């Protein structure tokens, strides 16, 4: 992670000087993470790809405004979060994003189909804020302060969302996972 951050900082400085290839290199290092974050929010591969392109375009247009290169990740995901919610508002201006869920995904090798279904169902039972907190923490590995920057919320709010979500899910998932069905 340290090497990655150092390389990102170097690339960002080059991009800020007009090096387009450096930006393409930066994109190649982050596009999978951004795409999967959006995919877990939207459940649509097409929307996620379109949004990913928009995210990187906005990042490209605004990267000279980024003062702290070490905060590139949260800054980029903040753009992604805003783009996703902009799409949600456009699609469902009244109901918000409450009906968005998590798409059925292929499980990791060795995981049982039952556990995969249980995980998807548990995620779908969360509200969007809780689900996004789980995605950013469990799947993307951001720190609480980074999540607060991405979501524009206090750390206490982030922790509340995350721990409530885990409290809801562990009732189903911990026994299933403890049954030796394909984790660890």
């Amino acid at each position, binding site marked *: 992670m340290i090497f990655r951050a150092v390389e990102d900082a170097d690339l960002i400085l080059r991009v800020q000087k007009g090096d387009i290839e450096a930006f*393409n290199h930066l*994109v190649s290092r982050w596009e999978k993470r951004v795409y*999967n974050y959006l995919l877990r929010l939207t459940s649509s591969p097409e929307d996620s790809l379109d949004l990913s392109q928009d995210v990187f375009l906005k990042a490209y247009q605004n990267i000279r405004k980024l003062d702290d290169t070490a905060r590139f990740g949260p800054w980029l995901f903040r753009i992604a979060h805003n783009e996703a919610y902009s799409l949600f508002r456009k699609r469902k201006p009244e109901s918000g994003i409450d009906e968005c869920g998590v798409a059925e995904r292929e499980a*990791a090798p060795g995981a049982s189909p039952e556990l995969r279904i249980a995980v998807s169902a548990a995620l779908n039972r969360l509200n969007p804020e809780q689900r996004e907190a789980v995605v950013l923490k469990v799947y993307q590995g951001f720190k609480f302060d980074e999540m607060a920057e991405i979501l524009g919320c206090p750390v206490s709010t982030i922790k509340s969302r995350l721990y409530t979500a*885990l409290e809801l899910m562990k009732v189903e*998932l*911990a026994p299933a996972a403890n049954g030796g069905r394909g*984790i660890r």
Partner: protein
Amino acid sequence: MSTTCGKAEALRDYAFDELPAIDRPEMERHIGACPECAAELDQLRLTTAALRILPDREIPQRIAFVSDKVFEPSPIARFLHSAWAGLASAGLMAAALIFTVLHQPAPQVRTIIQSASGTDVTQQVTKQIDEAVSRAVQQAHAQDAELTKASLAEAETRHQREHRVLMVEMEQSLEYIQKRLGTMTSLTSSMEAPQNRGGQ
């Protein structure tokens, strides 16, 4: 919260590696001494492990950018870029010309000329053949005429010879007949003369 321990939130921070390093040894000692927190930590780890069975997907299409006016290159960079671009363009054009010259198919004009030459040759050959055939036919006709003429001459000669032979034979026959007639006349006269002398 399923745990009633007063360190529940700190336990969750510890589970997600968010507890300050200075507080971690104390929390680890607490977990060892508090079965409720140990069970809670175990459940949190099982839950996050279960969530991670849904792995990331590969992005279906790579994202790349080629240009943007936001980042205009410096004048020097533009000059260098254009110079290199010019050199590259010149090189590409030169390569294209060389390639065209080396790999160009036979020019159409040349093809047309070749085609026309081919037609002349064919016509000439045909003409020569026709002339040869014509000459051969004429020669054959001439030979036939000569043969016919010779045959006619030979036939004429043979006819004249045979005619002469026939004429000679006829003359001889006529002479023989005349001799026979003369003889018979003489005999007749001689036979009539005694009868006349006895009737007187």
